[in-house]
């Protein structure tokens, strides 16, 4: 044992010299990651706190840093339908409900339906799949421009059908304040459903073929096979697709602007449009910030449990 001690003593001065460099080497990964992390902390979390702070002030055109309490929130919730036209915040919230529900439900249903159809050993799948999916490559602005034209009563579908002789056909949702939000749903579904289809298709292709064979041997019909075996196995895809769609729905801003310019009297607004208008155009910064905080909270309620479970799955 004494020999061990002497070697250690002998080596001590030698060891301490590289340890400064070694320590730097050890810290290098953290040094590399630090700028990105700092940026995230400041520009995401810091800014969120800043926005939260502003929502409790009476900022108008310029930020004010005197806390005045939850006045902005009270104003938001104080505005109701009773006013005529209904307050833009209530319109935005109701639109969000309609748009969010229909957009997510239709995209999921249509995406799954198309994926199942395409999974039936279709000749020409290689041609059809990109056709269904390409709208996802377009910007919301281009999508909006295209559908605005297509849905315009004087230029688009209605006029075309009139020319073909169906003169009683009437379709003016895009100009109707009660229906304009549904045109946003149509354009949104057109854009995103192909991608949801691709997600489901990938999920279908990932299912173990032996499970399908076993179910067929057990006597399941095609319909039963999908209802009882395939769709339950696609549950994780449903979850992912829901997250993607919910996230897209809450962020949707461009589509409303390009398709409807906000609709007659702001009747197509979503909370994101409300936030933008109040913050940058109506000089109601505190109210705009409060609406942004509410949007964020909605996302947090959906995303955080999801991320938590995703990161938990493989504990390290």
């Amino acid at each position, binding site marked *: 044992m004494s*020999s*061990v001690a002497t*070697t*250690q003593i002998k*080596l001590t001065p030698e*060891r301490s010299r590289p*340890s400064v460099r*070694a320590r730097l*080497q050890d810290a290098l990964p953290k040094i590399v990651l630090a700028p990105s992390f700092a940026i995230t902390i400041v520009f995401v979390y810091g800014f969120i706190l800043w926005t939260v702070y502003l929502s409790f002030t009476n900022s108008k055109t310029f930020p004010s840093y005197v806390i005045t309490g939850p006045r902005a929130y009270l104003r938001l919730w104080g505005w109701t339908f009773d006013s005529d036209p209904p307050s833009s915040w209530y319109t935005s919230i109701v639109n969000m409900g309609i748009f969010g529900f229909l957009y997510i439900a239709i995209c999921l249903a249509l995406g799954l339906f198309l994926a199942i159809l395409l999974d039936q050993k279709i000749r020409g799948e290689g041609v059809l799949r990109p056709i269904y999916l390409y709208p996802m490559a377009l910007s919301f602005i281009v999508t909006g421009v295209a559908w605005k034209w297509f849905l315009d009563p004087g230029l688009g579908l209605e006029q075309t059908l009139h020319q073909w002789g169906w003169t009683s056909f009437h379709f003016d949702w895009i100009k109707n304040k009660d229906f304009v939000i549904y045109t946003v749903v149509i354009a949104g579904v057109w854009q995103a459903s192909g991608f949801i289809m691709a997600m489901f298709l990938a999920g279908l292709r990932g299912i173990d073929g032996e499970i399908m064979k076993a179910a067929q041997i057990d006597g399941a019909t095609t319909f039963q096979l999908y209802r009882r075996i395939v769709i339950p196995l696609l549950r994780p895809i449903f979850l992912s697709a829901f997250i993607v769609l919910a996230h897209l729905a809450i962020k949707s801003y461009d589509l409303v602007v390009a398709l409807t310019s906000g609709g007659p009297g702001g009747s197509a607004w979503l909370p994101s449009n409300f936030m933008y208008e109040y913050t940058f155009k109506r000089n109601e910064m505190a109210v705009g910030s409060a609406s942004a905080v509410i949007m964020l909270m909605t996302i947090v309620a959906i995303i955080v449990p999801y991320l938590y479970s995703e990161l938990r799955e493989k504990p390290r």
Partner: protein
Amino acid sequence: MAFLEIDGLKKRFGNVEILKGIDVELEKGGFLVLVGPSGCGKSTLLNTIAGLEQITEGEIRVDGRAINDLHPSKRDIAMVFQSYALYPNMTVAGNISFGMEMRGVPADERQKAIDKVAKVLQIGHLLNRKPSQLSGGQRQRVAMGRALVRDPKLFLFDEPLSNLDAKLRVDMRIEIKRLHATTGTTIVYVTHDQIEAMTLATKIAVMRDGEVQQFGTPAEIYNNPTNLFVADFMGSPAMNLIPATIATKGNALSVVLQREAREPITLPMANAPAGLSAFQGKPIIFGVRPEALTDPEGAERNASNIATADLHIEVVEPAGSDTFAVTNLGGKPVVARLRADANIQPGTSTPLAFNLTKAVFFDPATEHRIR
């Protein structure tokens, strides 16, 4: 002083102790195999020798010099990985010379070293290929070439044969053994395959749960296992470990084995270990390897202590070179190893010979060997 010395090595992740005080040493030119079931810490131990993982306590010395604080590249070691870890973007030559390139060895010297190694391993025709264009055995050779070219003090092998098919594995095993014999390098080798351990090693460390269960030569480990775990783990087919009791017959001890539906077998022990007398009337574990339980004609001629008993054969497994017969003793299936041409039928009773010179005994409470 041994060439590789590992003293009181401990490794903790948070509160979990992965390695619980490892003491192992290896002479220069030796071949140490770390063997054990998955999760026993053998790969972690190898990684700490390589410097890929830090140790919490203890010291690792190579040639008298402590290396545990050195960067892996400064330890003068080379390592062959389970997946071979060949850089997929580089050619075979690039893979072999990458380490030299990192150390700033000039290009012409690198080329010479590559050629030399390529000749030894007969991979000269592969030098310009990418790893994806190689077969499993060729990848294995390149991985060894990458280690050889460094001419290190210590070679580390991390389950290098486990990704090969059975036949290739045997070929490569022989090749590694030949390489060791011709180059005289010192090797530490991790495997979960006890046959690899037996055939390659000059020293074996059997590990479980972060502890070395037994450290010794292959013959010591095989013939004199220190506890139930080592006895059970080493050897294929595994040692028969039969619950038994110790009785006294005259002034000699004997082992009593229960049989199904028949009276127990009593085996007189002529040369019982001294410790066994303390177990009179108590349960013990009686260990006998399949080759020490055979047909009376096939039994070892010069064994001093052989006892024969009639046993009911349940299953017969002809394996080509041998025939295995399965019987039941002490409530457990017991395997006997017979000559290939032994005339034996399942469902019959046959006399079988126990070579009691090779028998070992364990305390069921502590699982330790009774000596």
